[in-house]
């Protein structure tokens, strides 16, 4: 078979089960593409030996008739996931050399289902960023290119998005704290799903903001997201916030029939100065869902405007606490000390050398908002606003709304380096449509829906009710079929 790396998970599953290809062939094809794609900066630790061993085991399993939907599927794994014996450093210098003695629950679930790990994927340092420019490994680059500029694949799961869009792997894991799956998916023309908080175990995923973090699939189709979510999700006693609810067959929900479904259109997501192309795409998305038989209603989510400011209190606060563990004692980098320097200097020098500028900034902002005298004014106030943001969604769902349609991002991919001179807040605005979903703990998906005038992909976001990923995936499936997005980046790398 040709173009093996372009296959979806669903197509590969069929080819594997019919014996038209093998997991080893699929894996070798991906490894060859990865070797030729260093210009994308997507794979930062390659694991070909592990991949081929897993592929051989997968072929044996398929032969024995014991395959799952993920058996033999070659994946990229975001560097935020701890993988046993394989570098896992959250794209940070402070975890230089760290090789976990354990496997994250998500990767364990995937490998247990027979999936193959091709290597670890680039990202923003500690998942803090929207352009993959804060990585210690250097930038990941978007395979989409319309002029001489190198474009960002988005962030923080930029390497995952780049690798899937460039067909270096069949799918990848991502994580999403404020939009880190959905924004890069939109920038690269792929599908990304952030599940309900608690659907997927966080155990073994390097923590950024624990009340917001959630892992999810980044794939070439909605069906693939359904298949891969099924393998990633599940109750995990090792994560105290993991939900103990029955597992669903997400793929079985994909009928494409959304007749009678009520789709909310939030008026607050129409921003001043929003590019006309984004507005046009949103209108087209509404028409597609209406044509498929859904009923559109206008809704209001009045506290939307306060989501980003609340996020930039809560996320740094949690990060400052989570990242306190990087002190040069148990793992990773430790600074060299001068004579007479003691343990305080060791902590301060280690963290100054190991953390990049954005991580340092957020840890310090978090420290400030949690410090005595400011805790109530900032942190508690932000948690109250968060409660109001969630209440906005609850009220919309109480009105009978099944899903909410919004743009995924306020623009198409921008050039690497273009935001370098902007103040940090400008970069934060990338997540204006996605961050509300994390604050409210909801499932959200980005579905590629069109191209802008320059030929860059744009995505639409669907937001679902808590625990209703199956229904959300089905709505996304209807949108995907109507949008008929098939464009691929022309290969330049």
């Amino acid at each position, binding site marked *: 078979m040709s173009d093996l790396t372009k296959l979806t998970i669903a197509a590969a599953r069929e080819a594997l089960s019919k014996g038209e290809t093998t997991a080893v062939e699929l894996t070798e094809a991906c490894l060859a593409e990865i070797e030729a794609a260093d210009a994308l900066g997507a794979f930062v630790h390659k694991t070909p030996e592990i991949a081929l061993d897993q592929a051989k085991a997968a072929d044996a399993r398929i032969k024995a008739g014991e395959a799952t939907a993920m058996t033999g599927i070659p994946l990229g794994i975001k560097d935020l996931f701890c993988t046993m014996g394989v570098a896992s450093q959250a794209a940070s210098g402070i975890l230089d050399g760290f090789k976990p*003695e354990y496997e994250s629950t998500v990767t364990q679930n995937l490998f247990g289902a027979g999936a193959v790990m091709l290597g670890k994927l680039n990202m923003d340092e500690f998942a803090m960023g929207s352009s993959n420019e804060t990585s210690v490994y250097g930038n990941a680059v978007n395979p989409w290119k319309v002029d001489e500029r190198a474009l960002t694949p988005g962030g923080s799961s930029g390497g995952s998005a780049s690798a899937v869009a460039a067909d270096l792997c069949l799918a990848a894991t991502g994580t999403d704290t404020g939009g880190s799956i959905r924004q890069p998916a939109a920038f690269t023309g792929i599908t990304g799903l952030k599940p309900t908080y608690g659907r997927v175990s966080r155990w073994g995923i390097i923590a950024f903001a624990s009340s917001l973090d959630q892992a999810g699939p980044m794939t070439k189709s909605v069906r693939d997201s359904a298949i891969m979510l099924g393998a990633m999700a599940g109750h995990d006693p090792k994560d105290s916030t993991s*939900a103990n609810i029955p597992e669903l067959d997400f793929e079985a929900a994909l009928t494409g029939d959304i007749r009678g479904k009520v789709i909310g259109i939030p008026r607050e997501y129409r921003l001043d100065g929003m590019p006309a192309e984004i507005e046009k795409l949103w209108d087209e998305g509404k028409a597609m869902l209406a044509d498929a038989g859904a009923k559109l209603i206008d809704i209001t989510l009045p506290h939307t405007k306060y989501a980003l400011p609340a996020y930039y209190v809560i996320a740094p606060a949690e990060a400052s606490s989570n990242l306190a563990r990087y002190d040069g004692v*148990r*793992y990773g980098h430790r600074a060299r000390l001068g004579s007479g320097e003691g343990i305080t200097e060791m902590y301060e020098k280690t963290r100054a050398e190991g953390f990049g500028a954005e991580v*340092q900034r957020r840890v*310090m902002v*978090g*420290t400030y908002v949690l410090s005595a005298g400011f805790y109530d004014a900032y942190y508690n106030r932000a948690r109250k606003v968060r409660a109001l943001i969630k209440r906005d969604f609850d009220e919309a769902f109480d009105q009978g709304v099944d899903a909410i349609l919004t743009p995924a991002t306020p623009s198409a991919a921008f050039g690497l380096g273009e935001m370098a001179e902007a103040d940090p807040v400008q970069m934060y605005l990338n997540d204006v449509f996605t961050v509300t979903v994390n604050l409210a703990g909801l499932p959200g998906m980005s579905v590629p829906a069109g191209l802008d005038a320059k030929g860059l992909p744009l995505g639409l976001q669907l937001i679902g009710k*808590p625990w209703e990923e199956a229904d959300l995936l089905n709505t996304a499936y209807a949108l995907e079929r109507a949008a008929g997005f098939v464009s691929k980046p022309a290969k330049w790398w």
Partner: protein
Amino acid sequence: MSIDIETARKVAHLARIRVEEDRLPALAAEFNDILGFIEQLNEVNVDDIEPMTSVTPMRLKRREDVVTDGGYPEKVLSNAPDARVGFFAVPKVVE
């Protein structure tokens, strides 16, 4: 609320991140940009609203307070920058 250089120095120390003296003014300016953005939260009426503790209505699970894991110090120490005779090693803390 405006952050001066002294506050920036104090926050950096609380966060245990060394910031060179000549970087402090720029750091204070960045803090002020971000805090200015956060100040918008003051527009929201949060009277009688409880701060969110859990985004999904779940009670954190309890378990018995017993040892469930351990017994492999070599694995725990395998990534340490400095480990000796079964312990993490750090600069002298107590004189």
